[in-house]
């Protein structure tokens, strides 16, 4: 048996001291209300059947997961006090804590784990998280054995944050459809905070769980998540102190302004796992873009430094490949496509697209997600004059709203489109989907809408997806990324400038790889 956890009770203490590097010298204090401001509105609060930031932030306070991760991408005990992986890598045994209770007083058992995993497998949009799971055995109330058809290292990240909330079988297992279960809007979990009130689009109130399974936690009495419609008003509110914390702050002007404020601390830590990439994707079925050299030429023609430093005021970071720089699987050696207009022109000449009388070679349209002005429209507008330099006539196609854009791109009715796609921790969850041949699915947004297909890449991704040895896994992903970056179905532009702005009196701000999408049981008010 290979051991991944330490089978001692003290492991629990280590888990909760996960962000020890950031623990302040002063002793944490109990009490107080944390007001979190957000522009994201939650449909409901059950992350088992609803992905996305808006549900994940409250969801991870209400529901506990088998594991949690620290800031170094290391799995830590949470509901599972220890775990082991079988020698063939095809099963993971979770040893659950015996003192964990749901907010209604009933104990958390292996039955609930099996039920939750099945619910997530059946209803969660990220099918790849638990697709290889064949069964979950429950030899006793506090042992759950997850069996896989092949080794599945992604299961560890998929058992943390909002991805595998342990939901009570006695509440959600009453036969009603999990997606529209009434308890989704008034959930019962076992996490550090209990559900108190939910006004859709207005606010969510969570109260301290006095019977939380980690002794002495949480420190806060209450968390209030307030919805703001306008990011500028929210930035003012956090600066003024009406709001204590503003996670997923992404407007560069507000970031710059708040960084200068004496009242708040602004950090970009806590977004490593979510890994949000802003990119330009190509429809590889297009008559020009089907030629790899045309795609490479466009990648060489765009100036990432200019986008990051001039358009985004230096608040975002460049992205260079499918996996984000904060991840252990980031391929530092893949081609970076540094600005080179001569090379871009040469590639286009080589591809046989000569400049015509108007000095243009051909025409392409570019779509972008509406309501993300800086990241999407701004970059698309920049690309028009920039690509003109290499003889590509670009026409911008605006969409009035998100569904209009999604329909075009998922229907493959586009030439090029700006897009924002998240890594979601493990590449199996958020990266494979963009490149696998069998994920070219019309009508499904954030599938392989580029229609990119390379069997070698498929094989490498499949191998990496079931490789338990981290070093070998990194190598496989490096190879896959080198090929993908070279073939350029996508020109990677930058990371979303996600930041957290919080008041200075907040102790132990969320700094793990999942940031605010993880239990805030260590946060306290100074």
């Amino acid at each position: 048996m290979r051991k991944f956890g330490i089978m001692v009770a003290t492991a629990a203490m280590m888990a909760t001291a996960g962000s020890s590097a950031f623990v302040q010298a002063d002793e944490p204090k109990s009490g107080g209300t944390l007001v979190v401001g957000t522009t994201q509105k939650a449909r409901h609060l059950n992350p088992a059947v609803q992905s996305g930031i808006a549900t994940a932030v409250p969801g991870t306070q209400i529901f506990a997961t088998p594991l949690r991760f620290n800031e170094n991408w290391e799995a830590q005990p949470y509901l599972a006090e220890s775990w082991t992986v079988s020698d063939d890598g095809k099963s993971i045994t979770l040893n659950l804590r015996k003192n964990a209770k749901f907010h209604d007083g009933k104990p958390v058992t292996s039955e609930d784990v099996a039920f939750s995993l099945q619910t997530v497998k059946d209803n969660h949009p990220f099918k790849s998280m638990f697709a290889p799971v064949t069964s979950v055995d429950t030899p006793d109330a506090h042992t759950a054995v997850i069996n896989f058809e092949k080794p599945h290292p992604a299961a560890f990240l998929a058992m943390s944050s909002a991805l595998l909330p342990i939901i009570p079988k006695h509440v959600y297992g009453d036969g009603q459809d999990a997606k529209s279960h009434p308890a989704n809007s008034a959930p019962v979990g076992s996490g550090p905070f209990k559900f108190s009130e939910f006004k859709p689009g207005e606010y969510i109130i969570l109260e301290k769980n006095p019977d939380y399974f980690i002794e002495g936690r949480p420190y806060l009495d209450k968390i209030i998540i307030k919805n703001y419609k306008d990011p500028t008003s929210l930035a003012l509110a956090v600066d003024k102190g009406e709001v204590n914390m503003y996670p997923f702050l992404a407007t560069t002007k507000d970031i710059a302004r708040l960084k200068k404020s004496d009242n708040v601390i602004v950090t970009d830590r806590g977004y490593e796992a979510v890994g949000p990439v802003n990119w330009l994707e190509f429809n590889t079925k297009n008559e020009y873009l089907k030629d790899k050299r045309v795609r490479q030429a466009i990648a060489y023609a765009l100036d990432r430094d200019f986008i990051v430093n001039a358009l985004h005021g230096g608040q975002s970071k460049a992205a260079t490949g499918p996996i984000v720089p904060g991840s252990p699987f980031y391929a530092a050696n893949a081609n970076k496509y540094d600005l080179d207009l001569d090379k871009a022109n040469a590639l286009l000449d080589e591809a046989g697209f000569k400049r015509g009388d108007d000095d243009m070679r051909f025409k392409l349209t570019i779509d972008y997600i509406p309501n993300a002005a800086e990241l999407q429209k701004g970059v698309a507008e920049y690309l028009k004059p920039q690509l003109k330099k290499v003889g590509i006539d670009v026409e911008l196609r605006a969409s009035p709203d998100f569904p209009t854009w999604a329909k075009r791109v998922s229907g493959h009715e586009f030439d090029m489109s700006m897009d924002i796609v998240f890594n979601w921790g493990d590449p199996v969850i958020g990266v494979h989907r963009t490149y696998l041949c069998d994920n070219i699915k019309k009508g499904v947004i954030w599938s392989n809408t580029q229609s990119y297909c390379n069997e070698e890449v498929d094989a490498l991704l499949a191998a990496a997806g079931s490789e338990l040895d981290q070093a070998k896994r990194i190598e496989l992903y490096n190879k896959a990324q080198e090929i993908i970056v070279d073939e350029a179905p996508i020109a990677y532009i930058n990371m979303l400038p996600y930041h957290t702005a919080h008041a200075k009196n907040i102790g132990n701000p969320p700094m793990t790889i999942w940031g605010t999408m993880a239990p805030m049981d260590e946060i306290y008010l100074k």
Partner: protein
Amino acid sequence: MNMAWMVVRRLFHAFVLVLAVLVLNFLLIHLAPGDPADVIAGEMGGATEEMLADIRKTYGLDKPIYVQLGVYLERALQGDLGQSFFYNAPVLDLVAGRAGATILLVVTALLFAIAVGTLLGVLASHKPKGIVSGLVTLVSVVGYSAPIFWTGLMLVILFAWVIPIFPIANMFDITKDTGFFGFILDVLHHLVLPALTLGIVYLAQYARLTRASMLEILGSDYIRTARAKGVAETKVYTHHALRNAILPVVTIAGLQFGSIVSGAVLVETVFSWPGLGTLAFESILARDYPTVLGILFFSSVLVIIANLITDLVYRIVDPRIRTGG
């Protein structure tokens, strides 16, 4: 008798109108590209084909549109506006929960605008080429033409940031537990800036309208006659001129109250005011058909009520309509 008959006739017309509004809106929103499944998939960061089909089936979107329309109308006539696709909650609850906030905001802004606007208009009409008139015209034009979100943000920066006497956003402070009267005061405190923002836009219209209307009436024969009879100038203004000049103001107020949802969207957004305007806007983006239709239904009912009230007020203000029918 006459009056009762009028009300009955109006109500019948209103019913037909509401039905037409429902059908038209239903067809219009289904014309927009993309459907709730795309939006829900978008919110979730991705989905599979099976999931999309499943969502469409759950909400009946896999059926032909005339079947969907039939089902919707049948339920709507029984008072069931359906479940919100996005929030999974009854539309009636969502709309009812938000309507109060919007009505409070718009009525406050309207009353402020009517009172101050009419007063400014009358003042300006006194000496149409004087300084007061010029100032009123200038303020009206600026107030009316400035984008409403800009006015709102400027007021926020000025009165919530530079001089922090008002809160930045929301309708009340959920962190405070102040009891009933404390809550009322808190809401009023939060109401000032959004109502002022919205009021400034309306105000301009009333001031301009009153001024123009007053000027026209002050030049008419019966005013000259009144003055010739020796009626005091104040009385000429209040009893003779304003009473007639106010008719268009009543018309506009009725119209504006009817358009309460559309008027408040931007103000509600800037101040995160939990009203119908933002709910409508968000629901359209989310292709949340039942919620959009529910709000449109509610607002068309409001328009009809506002028109009825306008008619009644007309009869009070203008005796000619009372007898003429």
